[in-house]
């Protein structure tokens, strides 16, 4: 089946317009998922929430399953700021292997919110989900979303965000992909002076296939959209990156930037990238940069001359690149934990 269509098509034989995956990736029978831990959200959690509608489709039968056969719907109406982040942990185990969930965060006017969602487990997990973040006027939301599956799994994830006037959304997406990881991220910058930042880091090994389709549509004036992605591919991993910043007519004085760095840590890893800038408004400042390659030999030589092994030197460089993206993460301890996790994931044979 073909998933995660690019918003703009290009030549079919490039193989980037969509993600071609085997039908067996889709799981028909969904069993209950109960291992959900929610912290710091008592007053915000709407237990009577119903299913939501969503417009961004990922394709195949995944969308129908998500709307009709999900096993978790979490809705948070966040109407006051608080110091501690709302944390939602989905722990996958033998009895909780399949998660088809909808999560909605409605951040009310003038509210600051910090959100952490993590999916982890040591089983062959199946995940099909959507996160919707609606930032009302003058609100601010920071989210950290982590997927960490130890065994070969399926991760199909959508984001569908709206960012209103003078509000700011920052999402840090950390994907320790294993198996299939198909991610569609969409943000609509509705309001003037809105800001939407997506930072993504990923590490993929084995025969993992990562398909990232990130899009930010800028409608509001004096707004700012940013997509920054850094990843490392090991073994025979493959990555597709489709990034789009779309300056719609009227978004005067807005800016957008897209930056993709893909580090190839194996000669058998493969990277495809399609970083797009679409512009129907003249008075904007848009730019993108992308680079692909292995870790610079000069950098390695410098570090190795300080007594590090080659593999440790590579790890050090990769972590430094990741650190740039994860900089300013609201939880410093968590950031260090993530960097340590990157260190562990990078244990490999060159």
């Amino acid at each position, binding site marked *: 089946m073909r998933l995660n269509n690019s918003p*703009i*098509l*290009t*030549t*079919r034989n*490039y*193989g*980037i*317009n969509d993600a071609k995956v085997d039908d067996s990736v889709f799981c028909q029978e969904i069993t209950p998922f109960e291992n959900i831990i929610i912290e710091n959200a008592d007053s915000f959690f709407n237990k009577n929430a119903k299913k939501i509608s969503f417009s961004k489709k990922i394709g195949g039968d995944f969308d129908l399953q998500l709307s009709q056969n999900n096993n978790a719907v979490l809705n948070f109406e966040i109407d006051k700021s608080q110091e501690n982040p709302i944390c939602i942990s989905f722990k996958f185990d033998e009895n909780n292997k399949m998660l088809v969930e909808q999560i909605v965060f409605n951040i009310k006017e003038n509210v600051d919110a910090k959100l952490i969602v993590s999916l982890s487990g040591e089983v062959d997990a199946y995940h099909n989900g959507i996160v919707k973040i609606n930032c009302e006027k003058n609100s601010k939301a920071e989210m950290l979303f982590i997927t960490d599956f130890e065994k070969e799994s399926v991760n199909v994830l959508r984001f569908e965000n709206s960012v209103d006037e003078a509000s700011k959304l920052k999402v840090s997406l950390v994907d320790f992909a294993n198996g299939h990881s198909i991610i569609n991220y969409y943000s609509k910058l509705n309001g003037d002076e809105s800001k939407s930042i997506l930072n993504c880091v990923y590490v993929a090994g084995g025969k993992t296939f990562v398909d990232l389709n990130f899009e930010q549509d800028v409608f509001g004036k004096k707004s700012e959209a940013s997509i920054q992605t850094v990843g490392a591919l090991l073994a025979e991993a493959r990555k597709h990156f489709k990034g789009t910043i779309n*300056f719609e*007519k009227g978004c005067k004085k807005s800016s957008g930037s897209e930056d993709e760095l*893909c580090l*190839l*840590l*194996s*000669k058998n*890893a*493969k*990277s*495809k*990238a*399609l*970083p*797009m*800038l*679409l*512009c*129907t*408004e*003249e*008075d*904007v*400042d*848009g*730019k*993108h*940069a*992308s*680079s*692909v*390659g*292995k870790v610079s030999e000069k950098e390695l030589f410098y570090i190795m001359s300080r007594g590090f092994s080659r593999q440790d030197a590579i790890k050090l460089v990769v972590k430094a690149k990741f650190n740039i993206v994860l900089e300013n993460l609201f939880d410093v301890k968590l950031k260090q934990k993530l960097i340590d996790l990157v260190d562990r994931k990078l244990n490999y044979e060159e």
Partner: protein
Amino acid sequence: MPKTKVKEINQNIYDFKNQDNFDFKMKKGLSEEIVREISKKKVEPEWVLDIRLKALEVYHKLDLPIWGPDLSELNMDEISTYVKPKTDKKESWEDVPEEIKDTFDKLGIPKAEHEYLAGVGAQYDSEVVYHSIKNSLLKQGVIYTDFDSAIRDYPELVKEYFTKCVPLFDHKFIALHYAVFSGGSFVYVPKGVKLEMPLQSYFRLNSPESGQFEHTLIIVDEGASLHFIEGCSAPKYNKVNLHAGCVELFVKEGASLRYSTIENWSKNMLNLNTKKAIVEKDAKMEWVSGSFGSKISMLYPMSILKGENSKTEFTGISFAGKGQNLDNGFKVVHLAPNTSSVVSSRSLSKSGGVATYRSLVSILPEATNSRCSITCDGLMLDDISRSDTIPFSNVEVDDVEISHEAKVGKISEKAIFYLMSRGLSEEDAKAMIVRGFANPISKELPLEYAVEMNRLINLELEGSIG
């Protein structure tokens, strides 16, 4: 600061038309009968007809592209694929019929030939009407002739290379090209021969509701070098014209080829041209491209870096005005170790024009230690135009470096203010900035052509401040 508005131009020096006089004009449409008749008119050998018929079959099997500009207005039933002008090929301008000679005079071709070219080919509608080459080059074994003559006079050489760089199943419009191709140039530069002066072919499409399908085949043998210039224009008609030419370039070991194009097709033209080069060991292929005309353009020159240490560079500019959708770019495939590519592309859009940069960089497993650097900038001159950047990269080996940078936006108000504070009018300041934006491309052209390109930019910018 008041908003600068740039008027559309109605006429330019390219937009003059002769009467639709011809020796023969094929009935409109595309069929086996028409393909056979073109071949018969040209008295071609059987193997060429076989290629035409095979291509027609492929054309009918392939779909229109699912991407890019809308091509739905193209109706092959309304296009005449072959128009023979009222003359044969001549080797002296004096022998070319007055009306056609006058056309090329206006375009400055005889003058250019006299002053700084080593050889010239001029095509009018479907046939080459003039071809010449300096004697000194003939003595060195250089072949520069029209493609029909090459099929007749150098069949083995043509057979060895024809369709080998651009196969007929590449895409729908290349299949169309091979079915009805006519005219074009053939160049062979022998081993070690380095041409100091460029060769130029000029393509003029005068006949309304017709297509031009010229085939250009260039072989630059080992250690040789060549600069080839291609120019094209047409008067504007109300109905669609089609250009689906093909350029096949072979750059042998240690050779170098620069292929420069100034394209100024009329704004009713669908320009669906295909250009590709195979670059061997230690060879270098340079593309310089200025794209100003056409209603729709889908043009992506391609270099296949087949040999170790081979290199390619692309320097291009597109200028999309009112009613134009220019979807241009560059493609490169790295197939061998230590190969490198450098791409610099700029596009301007105004008066509702759409400029798209679309590219491919593919680095395959054999291409270890290869490098690719791409920069593409889009400049929008008003708020009703569009500028898109759609670059694709595919990397299948770790030991490479690819970097890509792109920017899009408008002319800096600070820069306009600065120039105006030095006494320039806003219009002149803006024109100066645009010329500066195009400078990386014009500096790669011979002086005379750089002047020509700047003149085209000035024509496009001609207007007033509102």
